[in-house]
């Protein structure tokens, strides 16, 4: 409890002001993940991280609050059009001291408010100077406070290899936000930043992760390097990219840099800059949701990005989920028999998630499954019924066209997003 006995009294009012400013400035970073690594509490210190991660609260926008997510400072030398912290923006500026961030983290953690710290920063002086400060906080938490909770540090674009190497020894996760999915978009909105500056720390961290992992196989005592991996974020709807551009770009980062996650963040208009959507434009939340669904199809359901898009299909359907969209374009693959299909095909049926796939595979060892079993297991039959057969004589005849199936499903569905696509739907009915 060393931090509570700190000699200097903390001015709560001043801290509160800074916290308000620097939390506000950090909130557009979507990632709040605290999962993907199991770090146990060593030597009776404070904290651990669980493989599952924990969301300690949720904001009114429905997002998880898992970490104390703040900027060290919102002073910044750059002027990126999409960023609220840009140099030319007339906002209040503040900066935390290293010690203040450490005390906040520890005191929040002890009260079970958070899983750990997500520290980012505006860039002051230069990239290395900023990165050094971030590392100083993580180092103090780990070495002086014996803190074993989660730490996510932002990799500052342009930071040196040596600093990135050190950062990974204290942080669970490192991330650089690519923000703009295409090089041309970046040139338009952030003329003083180079694409290469984003890629450089990413590449370095990836190399270190690979190297430390292989060394650990030989020497058990090799320290862990960024055990929860890297992530990145892209802004959706700020420049004119198609969903195909975005997801091709995402799968590039997944493959090339072994990303744990790519986050998609619907652009929230914060500026009157003519290059960007006007203030008051709606945040593309539904589009963002469809991108995440597709991201899951790529990572967990065995789909490749080439299957989801083609030359005539550049954007995801907004009114139906991407798996249903894929199935309707590939009716020749269906129906499949629930009692004999392999795992890969079960996972491709609209309305069947991975949990249900597991349950079906277990249950069919005991008996042939019929509609009532599938219903009890929890499959969304309203969608799945058109694509499967089971131990029953009644199933949907295959003379239904994809458009008929789609309309039947939509008529029965009660989507929370209905208001976004009611008009499109009426074209078909």
């Amino acid at each position, binding site marked *: 409890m060393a931090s509570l006995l700190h000699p200097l009294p903390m001015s709560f009012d001043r801290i509160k002001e800074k916290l308000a400013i620097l939390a506000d400035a950090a909130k557009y970073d979507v990632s709040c993940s605290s999962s993907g690594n199991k770090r146990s509490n060593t030597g009776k210190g404070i904290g*651990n991280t669980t493989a599952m991660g924990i969301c300690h609260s949720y904001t009114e*926008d429905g997002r998880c609050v898992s970490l104390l997510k703040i900027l060290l400072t919102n002073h910044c030398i750059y002027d990126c059009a999409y960023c609220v912290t840009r140099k030319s923006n007339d906002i209040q500026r503040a900066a935390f001291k290293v010690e203040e961030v450490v005390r906040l983290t520890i005191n929040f953690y002890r009260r079970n408010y958070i899983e750990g710290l997500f520290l980012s920063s505006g860039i002051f002086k230069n990239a290395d100077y900023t990165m050094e400060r971030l590392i100083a906080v993580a180092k103090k938490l780990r070495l002086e406070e014996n803190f074993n909770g989660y730490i996510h540090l932002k990799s500052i674009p342009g930071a040196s290899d040596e600093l990135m190497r050190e950062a990974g020894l204290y942080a669970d996760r490192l991330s650089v936000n690519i923000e703009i999915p295409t090089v041309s978009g970046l040139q338009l909105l952030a003329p003083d930043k180079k694409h290469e500056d984003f890629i450089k720390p990413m590449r370095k961290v990836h190399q270190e992760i690979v190297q430390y992992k292989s060394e650990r196989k030989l020497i058990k005592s090799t320290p862990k390097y960024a055990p929860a991996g890297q992530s990145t974020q892209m802004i959706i709807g700020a420049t004119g990219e198609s969903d195909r551009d975005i997801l091709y770009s995402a799968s590039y980062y997944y493959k090339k840099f072994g990303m744990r996650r790519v986050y998609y963040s619907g652009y929230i208009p914060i500026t009157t800059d003519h290059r960007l959507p006007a203030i008051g434009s709606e945040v593309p939340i539904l589009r963002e949701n469809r991108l995440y669904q597709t991201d899951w199809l790529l990572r967990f359901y065995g789909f490749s990005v080439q299957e989801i898009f083609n030359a005539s299909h550049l954007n995801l359907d907004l009114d139906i989920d991407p798996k249903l969209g894929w199935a309707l374009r590939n009716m020749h693959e269906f129906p499949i028999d629930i009692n004999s299909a392999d795992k890969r095909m079960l996972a491709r049926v609209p309305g069947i998630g991975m949990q249900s796939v597991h349950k079906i595979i277990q*249950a069919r060892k005991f008996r042939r499954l019929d509609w009532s079993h599938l219903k009890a297991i929890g499959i969304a039959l309203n969608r799945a019924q058109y694509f499967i057969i089971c131990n029953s004589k009644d199933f949907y005849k295959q003379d239904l066209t994809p458009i008929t199936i789609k309309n039947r499903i939509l008529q029965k569905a009660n989507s929370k997003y209905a208001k976004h696509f009611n008009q499109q739907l009426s074209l078909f009915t």
Partner: protein
Amino acid sequence: MTHTLLVYDGSFDGFLCAVFMVYEQKMNAPSIQKQQDFHQQLFATTETVITETHKAQRVWEGIRSKTSRAELRTLFRSFLSEIKGIENTLLYYIQTVLRPKHTITGIDYSHTHTLRMHQIAKMVSREKHRMEAFVRFQRTKDGIYAATITPDFNVLPLIIGHFKDRYADQKWMIYDLKRDYGIYYDLDTVSTITIPDFTQIMPSSYATQETDFQKLWSTYYQHVNISERKNKRLHMQHIPKRYWKYLTEKKIL
């Protein structure tokens, strides 16, 4: 033939002893009920179960030899739900597992009772996870981090390990007001405690800086929200109103 009703003390051992009796006396389709839920029934023979550890142990060993560790955990978790009739679901499940021809080949999700047991265990696991997330400690004058909860299910036994590992260097206590017992960690071991008038004692004994930190947390919570993305429905889905009473950030300070 009349229906047999087995009444037990509500403990897990007691339940296992009821199962023991079912086998010992070759009972046909009896029901098992907690003493506290017991109502005298017409046309039923009532028998009281005596809890004996060695009998409970034998039943547990028997189940253990016939199923996986994960399944044992599921069984125990669903018992902690305290849902009415869970004992009968579990009895059917145990009878299925103990059949001579039963082997560990998979989980029969197409069997009503097995599926129900798994679904209830899932509900309990969710509640356990919520308690790990929503417990809010307040520091007392004597340096104990204390929290109260009123979980839907009896999850205190399930969260001990998590809190003990995480907060190894601070004294903490989590008190279940609904079931009137708590768990307390004294920097060494976790023990079960009962404190009369818990809610009256606590508020007067918080440390001086406690409300300052609570205010900082509330400030953070307000400022991390993006109002342009407001989604009340999703918000409520994640933190249903019944949990708000624990949450510092949901109180007006």
